[in-house]
């Protein structure tokens, strides 16, 4: 398919004797809003660690825009256009918010020195963080940290943005705020993989959803199909 962005083919991952991912295959298309859900410990974060390159797979292949990225180190994948946010925010603590964005702007997007500040400010404006540009990252509130995670990922100029539980622990209005930001990014042509426990958000946001349980894909489809799927209900609620 011409508009295929990311292809995960038969990926497995083991941690010692524990099988974290078993034969996982999925595709993300150009411009798609893709949801990844599943109970805690079902392997969602492990999968995106494999996609972003933080972890190496034990089997299977990863293709990004047709290029095999299975053995590429994480920093090269980011340069190719895969950016992620972290579930537990990992800001660069010695830097201000603006300086945090400098890192991906210099290293991933290879922005010209003179344009770095302007570009960073533009991204912060889009995220609603411009007032905090000069603030140390350690002084941010939770939602600001989450926004910084997304802003920093955006500064890498990705084609695929992986948002790992960007809304956990936020209030309902804050969830809406993040959703608006992600939707706006998607409208600019960026594909988004959203990992989330907040069903209201995932169901509203995603065009297609994959459900994980115990390291395997148990269901795949549109939000409506997923809601009506008995296997999904069983995974979440038990028999």
């Amino acid at each position, binding site marked *: 398919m011409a508009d295929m962005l990311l292809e995960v083919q038969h990926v497995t991952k083991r941690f010692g004797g524990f099988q974290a991912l078993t034969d996982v295959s999925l595709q993300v298309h150009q411009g798609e809003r893709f949801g990844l859900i599943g109970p805690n410990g079902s392997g969602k974060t492990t999968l995106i660690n494999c996609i*972003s*390159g*933080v972890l190496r797979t034990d089997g299977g292949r990863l293709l990004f825009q047709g290029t095999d990225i299975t053995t590429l*180190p*994480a*920093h*090269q994948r*980011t*340069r190719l256009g895969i*950016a*992620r946010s*972290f579930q537990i925010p*990992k*800001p*660069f*603590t*010695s*830097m201000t918010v603006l*300086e945090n964005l*400098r*890192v*991906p702007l*210099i*290293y*991933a997007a290879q922005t010209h020195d003179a344009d770095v500040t302007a570009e960073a400010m533009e991204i912060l404006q889009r995220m609603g963080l411009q007032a905090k540009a000069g603030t140390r990252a350690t002084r941010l509130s939770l939602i600001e940290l989450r926004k910084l995670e997304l802003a*920093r990922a955006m*500064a*890498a100029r990705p084609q695929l943005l992986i948002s790992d539980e960007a809304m956990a622990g936020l209030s309902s209005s804050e969830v809406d705020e993040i959703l608006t930001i992600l939707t706006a990014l998607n409208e600019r042509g960026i594909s988004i993989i959203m990992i989330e426990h907040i069903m209201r958000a995932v169901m509203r946001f995603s065009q297609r959803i994959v459900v994980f349980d115990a390291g395997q894909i148990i269901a795949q489809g549109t939000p409506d199909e997923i809601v009506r799927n008995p296997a999904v209900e069983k995974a979440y609620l038990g028999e």
Partner: protein
Amino acid sequence: MRRCVPAVLALSIIGLGLLLTGLVENRYFYFATYVILQYVVLATAWNILGGYTGYVNFGTPAFFALGAYTATFLMRAYQAPFLVQLLAGGLISGLLGLGIGCLTLRLKGVFFSIATLALTVVLQTLIINWEFVGGAKGMSIIRPATVLFFSSYVKFLFAVMLCLAVASVIIAWWLEHSWIGRGLAAIRDNEEAAECMAVPTLRLKILATTVSGALMGMAGAPFPLHVTLIEPTSAFNLDYAVNSLAMPMIGGTTTWLGPVVGAILLGAAQQTATVTISSALNLLIVGGVLVAFVILAPEGLVGLVRRLVQRERA
């Protein structure tokens, strides 16, 4: 115009130092300032890895002594000229740094620090058992009788160390202000996030360990000629590890200025104490000052001054 300022400053410091060698005759003055300048190099080199990149290195004695023993070996085996000794010392210790850099792939935090300490012990044991460079009892080094442009060898060594100090500060300044420095800081703050933000973490870490190691080796290369006796206990002295860590901590680890300030203050205090009170007091001073700084000014003198200036403005 502003771009020339650091270069002019560096050249004038070296010029001033050379002028001094024509004016001051007291040999002890050169001996003491040499030691302080040597610590400027060691502290600056340590800070490139420890301060900028966040990898605490306890192995300064290993890099320093490897430089010193490379020079000794070249002197003994080939009567190599001084410049060759200096460059070779830097090269060999730089290679050791490269190896340590690869180690960072597996060892992080305190485990890395322990490994560097172990490196010192291993290397010292090897040297103790190598008779050619003096083994455990060491060997005397005879300085060349004359040296070009200088009236005594001590002055020459002082000038060499001054140039090394200026050069290492320039390197640190450049690293800090270039795109490399931004990447090193990202590694220090969060290595995983740095890698995911496209920072080639392994390559930058190896760069930092290599540059840091090479500078330490070059600081060590003139050591045999400076003390005219090389033996393992003094070359691998743990003081180097403690001082090169304490000096940036006292001055401030995030800027090039920190290690320079720390080395000059602490180095001068140690030299003064050695002469006026006792030579054993050295480390006690370091310990006391370090404790005070960790409690009162955890960001070092540079950080403290910066905070005061900011408060003044606000």
